[in-house]
């Protein structure tokens, strides 16, 4: 279990989460359609996913990824801290590196906080049947749309969901390009392209996920 192994686990699971996030955001765009269309489509889509055996495997991979990502992030951070026990009286990190790259742990803790609330809001209610029961729509599908739309008519949750997409953007901007380097991508020109791709990817995800609750709230 060496330096490379630990970092590769974080990078590999991080990249898997990055791919998942694209699929997740695309699906959430259904929420932006007029309610009559959106409800049926969103519920049909989520039912199809829940019943697909391949998606079930992917879902378990996803839980495992999140778990491993967090566990190894903690392990890595512990060793990193112990490698630098004494801090500088003055350290101008802003002159040589990005804020996000210096604070991936802090950003990660915010994402973990988000994830706990997010899973409690949806996963616990829909999959585990905890809290208020979820009804069916006209087509007989579980009304996930209702869960989402009622949540996003609560001002507190709208703010919580939208604001926490800011740290997500920062985590992903540094994380995406860093993960590729961790896994050994070293082509010089490619790395320049990668840096730009990371900004674009992180912006789309953070703005995309962040704006949907606001649009649903004001719709």
């Amino acid at each position, binding site marked *: 279990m*060496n*330096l490379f192994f630990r970092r590769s686990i974080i990078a590999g699971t991080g990249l898997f989460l990055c791919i998942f996030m694209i699929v997740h955001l695309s699906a959430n765009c259904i929420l932006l359609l007029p309610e009559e269309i959106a409800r049926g489509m969103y519920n049909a889509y989520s039912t199809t996913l829940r019943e697909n055996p391949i998606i079930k495997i992917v879902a378990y991979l996803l839980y495992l990824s999140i778990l491993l990502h967090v566990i190894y992030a903690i392990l890595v951070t512990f060793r990193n801290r112990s*490698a630098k*026990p004494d801090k*500088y009286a*003055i350290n*101008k990190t802003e002159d040589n590196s990005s804020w996000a790259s210096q604070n991936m742990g802090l950003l990660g803790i915010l994402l973990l906080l988000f994830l706990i609330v997010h899973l409690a809001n949806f996963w616990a209610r829909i999959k585990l049947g905890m809290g208020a029961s979820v009804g069916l729509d006209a087509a007989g599908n579980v009304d996930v749309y209702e869960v989402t739309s009622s949540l996003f008519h609560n001002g507190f949750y709208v703010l919580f969901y939208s604001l926490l997409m800011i740290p997500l953007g920062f985590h992903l901007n540094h994380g995406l390009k860093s993960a590729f380097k961790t896994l050994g991508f*070293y082509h010089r020109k490619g790395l320049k392209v990668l840096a730009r791709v990371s900004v674009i990817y992180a912006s789309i995800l953070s703005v995309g996920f962040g704006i949907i609750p606001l649009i649903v709230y004001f719709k």
Partner: protein
Amino acid sequence: MEVTFRIWRQDNPTNKGGFINYVVDDLAEDMSFLEALDHLNEILVLRNEKVVAFEYDCREGICGQCGIFINGRAHGPHSNITTCQLYMRSFKDGAIITVEPWRAKSFPILKDLIVDRSAFDRIIEHGGYISAKTGTAPEANAILIGKGVSDKAMDAAACIGCGACVATCKNSSAALFTAAKINHLNSLPQGKPEAHQRVLDMTTQMEKEGFGHCSFTGACEVECPEGISIANIAEMNARYFKAKIFG
């Protein structure tokens, strides 16, 4: 010009150190930072006080001895230089200049601004060389090396082992140093026979010495006096995985 040096003083590795302020008022702007410290030490000698211990050798930016953390940056406020290449004109008259040793668990402080960087030597001992017959120098054209390859190897070989990468890294990672040494040799034909073993041995030693992980903050390549690119670390990672699979 007058400046206040706020310098970390520590008698030995086990003592607790602390900052002491020294006002020095007759400095010239064209003095190098090390000359300014020399000047301070002359004053301390006349006052019968202990001089500030700091390391240097060449004073022309090639030996890598003069590692000092100055005002929150490795080697002071400019990027890609050594401390001996830093001049007092980079500071304002009346400035307070905080002067600290490199801080990393693997670089224990010996005295004042001097740290023990022998962890780097031990990494080199684990493969930072090639096995070759000694004797007369071989014919230079016996092994042909393309310009692209030789340029890249030279860029990596430029590492002077100053330790700024470890000093500035939030994780005290020695990845840039180790990567530079590995890529320098592994990209050349002379380094190929032992390439896989070199990566595995040197990185294992790097881990044993207690350095942290690379988070790719990029601080190291900004503070490196030789401007060694962080892409070297990604390349070391690729070489490591290759060695693990095929080695």
